[in-house]
């Protein structure tokens, strides 16, 4: 029996898969003791933890600690002359015209940023040996200040970690209980500010992650769990607890990553290798591109970053996703120039949309969907509560008075603008990177994904929409589809026109060997392992790179030639031109996977029932510019593989609403996934 639990903002989801199929449970999330929600979910499921062969866990403990500043008092040890790098940051001001701009405060105040005499040159040669005796005084100061975590980041430590290793060792000799993370353990890419920030943030969340995983693990073992749990990482793989604690910042996007990975997995099962994945929740929508079965990974990740704030960079491998402030609870509002906007402010779950009747007086996307008949009032909030229509009409009155038009016209406008925002985000991950959406299917999940997906797909011109089975607990399900995964990136610039392929080959081998060794130390079996290699490449003179996958086997002249051709193609696709300049390899990227056996997806049973049995009603639904129609309403639970019909229609249950515009062909596949054709033939 294989089990995954995913801690979300509102609910803690549990998914259990065995030969009998899939079972799901939702329990309340229980801040601040999140492990309690996990235990409650297990209790609620009536499952016996002693029977779990495998247990995966996705957690928001890291992102919560960062966003609420609940991490530990952290210190930094760095190269003499450079302690202010963390505070200067990059000096940028995205809010260009705002003179009252506020610069983000560093996570380590200046008095806890210490300098050590040492220096490496840019090629990693020691130019000034490290003066370890300076650490006596520094460590004494940090102990006196009751610092809980220490980050070490030195200039050019990514090329040669020798001084960082020496300093870490000396700190631990002086203070054996100290929680210490050095930059080479979390990031081997150049740019000292980004690497320092990553190291500092990893140290900042180390103690809290350690405590949380410790409590979780011991409670689970008390319940009888035998295997050690695996923890979902931001890179779309899982890791052992030991591996996670070596670099806890890898958990920063734990939840969203597994949803995207689930999308990739289901795509492989049903033969859809090119997908645009869309996850719409209460406050945000997230999307990612899956090309040839793989989600893209990036290390250019930042928290608290938007058009007005520089945020904090975290150079850890993260599934490359775009997140925007548009979800079910996003508020519609009008600015001084009389333009309507939707989001990014959200009504959240309290007070929630106007129709919740909990004092929310702003119209939200959910309210608009309700008003247009797309959400079934009987199933509102899982059928547990009737919509508060007075509150909803009052909210739309406010907008209609300013903009003119009926409630319905305003509601259509709200959806249109929300959809336009989401289409822009979907274009960011597809068109803007040179991918043609017509080669892709849109896979939609999360609470609101299926409600908007068809309209978005029409706008984007993808060929079809897929609403996967288990769409409402998709992130937890995705964890059961992932392998163990650790990413190792190393900046080392090679001019591919001049370099010896053997050098490149041996460097990849060195990194892969060290990586496999580390994975073995973290509890991954050698025989489970397989390796993928990527090269971050650019034209000589450029700064930004494009990630190119490398074929397996030795890297020789021919392999480099193929990689270069691939790079030219990728550059042409993304930027519409190529150059004759020599090409540089900038980052060596090695991924070590640990293969995990998975339960195959079980086909949905058929009973011989007819489509008519699943059609439970007809309801008037407003499809905006495609008119108001009497739409067939289908019960998702009673649809069976092979059934097909044509929109206008709604498919619904207590947690899902799939909106299907007129003339669209719909069918359910063998596993229970819903396919909606947008253009062309299936």
């Amino acid at each position, binding site marked *: 029996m294989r089990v995954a639990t995913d801690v979300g903002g509102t609910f803690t989801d549990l998914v259990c898969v065995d030969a009998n199929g899939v079972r799901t449970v939702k329990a309340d999330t229980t801040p601040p003791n999140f492990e309690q929600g996990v235990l409650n979910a297990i209790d609620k499921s009536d499952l016996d933890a002693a029977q779990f062969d495998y247990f995966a866990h996705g957690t928001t403990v890291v992102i919560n600690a960062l966003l609420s500043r609940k991490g530990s008092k952290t210190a930094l040890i760095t190269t003499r002359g450079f302690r202010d790098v963390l505070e200067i940051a*990059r000096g940028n001001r995205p809010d260009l015209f705002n*003179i009252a701009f506020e610069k983000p405060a560093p996570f380590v*105040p200046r008095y806890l940023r210490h300098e050590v005499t040492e220096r490496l040159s840019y090629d990693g040669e020691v130019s000034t040996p490290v003066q370890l005796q300076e650490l006596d005084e520094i460590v004494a100061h940090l102990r006196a200040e009751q610092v809980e975590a220490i980050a070490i980041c030195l200039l050019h430590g990514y090329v040669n970690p020798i001084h960082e290793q020496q300093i870490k060792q000396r700190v631990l000799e002086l203070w054996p209980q100290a929680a210490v993370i050095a930059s080479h353990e979390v990031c081997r890419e150049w740019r000292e500010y980004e690497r320092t920030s990553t190291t500092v943030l990893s140290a900042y969340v180390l103690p809290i992650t350690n405590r949380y995983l410790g409590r979780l693990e011991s409670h689970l073992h008390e319940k009888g769990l035998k295997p050690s749990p695996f923890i979902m990482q931001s890179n779309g793989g899982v890791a052992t607890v030991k591996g996670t604690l070596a670099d806890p910042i890898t958990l920063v996007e734990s939840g969203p990553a597994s949803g995207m990975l689930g999308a990739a997995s289901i795509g492989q099962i049903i033969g859809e290798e090119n997908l645009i994945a869309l996850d719409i929740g209460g406050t945000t929508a997230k999307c990612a591109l899956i090309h040839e079965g793989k989600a893209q990974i990036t290390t250019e990740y930042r928290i608290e970053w938007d058009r007005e704030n520089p945020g904090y960079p975290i150079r850890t491998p993260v599934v490359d996703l775009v997140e925007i402030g548009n979800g079910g609870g996003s508020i519609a509002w009008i600015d001084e120039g009389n333009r309507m906007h939707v989001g990014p402010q959200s009504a959240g779950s309290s007070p929630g949309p106007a129709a919740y009747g909990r004092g929310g007086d702003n119209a939200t996307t959910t309210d608009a969907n309700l008003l247009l008949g797309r959400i079934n009032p009987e199933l509102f909030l899982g059928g547990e509560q009737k919509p508060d229509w007075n509150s909803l009409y009052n909210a739309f009155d406010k907008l209609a008075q300013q903009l003119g038009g009926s409630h319905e016209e305003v509601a259509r406008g709200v959806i249109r603008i929300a959809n336009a*925002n989401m289409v822009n985000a979907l274009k960011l991950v597809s068109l803007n990177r040179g991918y043609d959406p017509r080669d892709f299917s849109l896979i939609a999940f999360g609470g609101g994904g299926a409600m908007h997906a068809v309209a978005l797909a029409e706008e984007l011109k993808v060929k079809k929409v897929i609403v996967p089975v288990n769409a409402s607990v998709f992130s937890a399900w995705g964890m059961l589809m992932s392998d163990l995964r650790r990413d190792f990136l190393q900046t080392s610039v090679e001019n591919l026109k001049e370099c010896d392929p053997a050098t490149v080959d041996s460097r990849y081998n060195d990194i892969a060997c060290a990586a496999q060794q580390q994975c073995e130390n973290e509890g991954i079996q050698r025989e489970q392992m397989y390796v993928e290699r990527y090269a971050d490449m650019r034209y000589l003179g*450029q700064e930004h790179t494009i990630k190119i996958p490398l074929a397996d086997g030795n890297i020789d002249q021919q392999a480099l030639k193929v990689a270069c051709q691939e790079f030219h193609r990728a550059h042409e696709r993304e930027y519409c031109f190529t*150059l004759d300049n020599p090409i540089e390899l900038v980052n060596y990227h090695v991924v070590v996977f640990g293969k995990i056996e998975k339960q195959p997806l079980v086909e949905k049973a058929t009973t011989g029932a007819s489509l008519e049995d699943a059609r439970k009603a007809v309801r008037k639904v407003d499809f905006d510019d495609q008119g108001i129609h009497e739409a067939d309403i289908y019960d998702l639970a009673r649809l069976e593989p092979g059934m097909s019909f044509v929109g206008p229609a709604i498919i619904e249950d207590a947690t899902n609403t799939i909106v299907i515009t007129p003339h669209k062909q719909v069918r359910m596949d063998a596993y229970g996934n819903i396919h909606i054709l947008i253009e062309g033939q299936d």
Partner: protein
Amino acid sequence: MPAIEQDNPYTLEIIKSSLIAIGDEMFAAMSRTSMSPIIYEALDYSVGVTDAKGDLIAQGNGTTVFLGMIDSLVEDILAKFQGNIYEGDVFVGNDPYSGGGTHLCDVAIAKPVFFNDQLVAFTVNKAHWVDVGGMSPGSFTTNASEIFQEGIQLPTVKIFEKGDALDSVIDILKANIRMPESSMGDFWAGMAANNVGEGRLHDLFSKYGEHTVKRAMDELLEYGETMIAAEIRKLPKGSFYAEDWIDDDGLGDEPLKVCVKIDITEDKFVADFSGSAPQALGPINTSRSGLVSAVRTIFKAMTNPKIPANGGCFRALEVICPEETVFSAKRPAPVSTYWETMLYAEDLIWKALAEHIPERLSAGHLLSVCAFILSGTHPATGEPTILVGPLVGGWGAMKDRDGLNGQFSIADGETYNFPVEITEARYGVKVNQYAFHNEDGGFGRYQGGKGNYLEYEVCCEEAFFTGSFGRFKFPPWGVDGGLQGSSNYVEILRGGQPCDPPEIYGKAARVPLKKGDVVRMVTATGGGWGDPSLRSPQAVAEDLKNGYITSEQAQRVYGR
């Protein structure tokens, strides 16, 4: 596909959002393909879309300095090439005295966009090229005396016609610049940005039709106007005045007086620079388009910093300045460090109004971009290198908080400092420190933000340093009893040691350096706000603990 209701207000909203998004996309395309750190790190460039008349519709900015330049370039093209503009044409220009010109380093590339054989828009970008020839590597210098020393002039010419490259123009261009590969790489990056914009515009026009998109463009301009008008009504009304001094013109040593008189009424904002110093002999002059950009920038900061900039935002703004002043130079006056003076135009308005709009304006900040050029060779490869960059420094305090430490000037924006690790690897200099300094300045109830030291040690046999560090003689101003900040300057440490007397410059032109010499670049601490005696003891204690002030300063200034 269903028919689209042409003038549905929500459809128009969506077109407007898409137009704004085009600016962002063009911006990203340029950054990711550029060959020069000044573009991909400092983001010293701007992209934009205008309508067929040249009204600015959307702009993507890395810096604030280009706010007045996209639209005037297009107006210039329309005037000069009337009847001679075809699909597939590309224009290139850097004339400082017309067409939105600044200095020769800023090269604009413009592409007319056609739909159904009609000219419907332009996509434009303007970027700082690392070198455009002239007397000095990096092309800007502090002591030029005429434009001809500052690089090749491109008086808005075609570089593509009907889709074909005009190779002769490209050849002339390449022959006149020091690093043709890098600069032509940036040219192609600019072309890529324009093509991205053109593609997206085509999509919009084919989907919604010419009539609807044009209507959305007009509404976007009206929207900008309406949003700003609402803010002008909230500004203090009346006349305001400020004056200040520019250090010198780079050739001589005399300070230059500049001043502004501002009149704010219910629906108009007038800035009059009459009385400012006449056009100077040195390259400190700015042309009128720099002046307009500067006033637009501070005007936007005071009214609505948030909304995307377009031509409509500036309809209530009037800029008055007589001909041939330091703010309105005429050919062939040198202009290569124009930004120093351009920024004074912003700063004068800022200074005149800071106490009247304290929620939006701070005390004086470092102001100068503190741009420098270090040219030499990479010791490992022997290849020539030109390191060009701006520097971070201190911002002014506000009425209720300290100023920001280590930020770029208002001239910059989404500008990134160069990582030390990349600087050392790519340029072969050694960076000795990058840190806040404790020079006196900016004390007050709220303190100005800290300025920085950045030290480069020369590792090749011979190198040259050029730098323009304005506010060397006249530090950033304080407000309401807050003290003035410290100065921007550069000090050369020969063989790593201070000279006697110290070798200090506000403006340095091609100062020769030898291996082992250290260039210490020092940026200003911002101005303070409020009397230092009112600073809270806790704040002073925190500053001491963090080393932001010395114990001597705490004693002397704050009596602790």
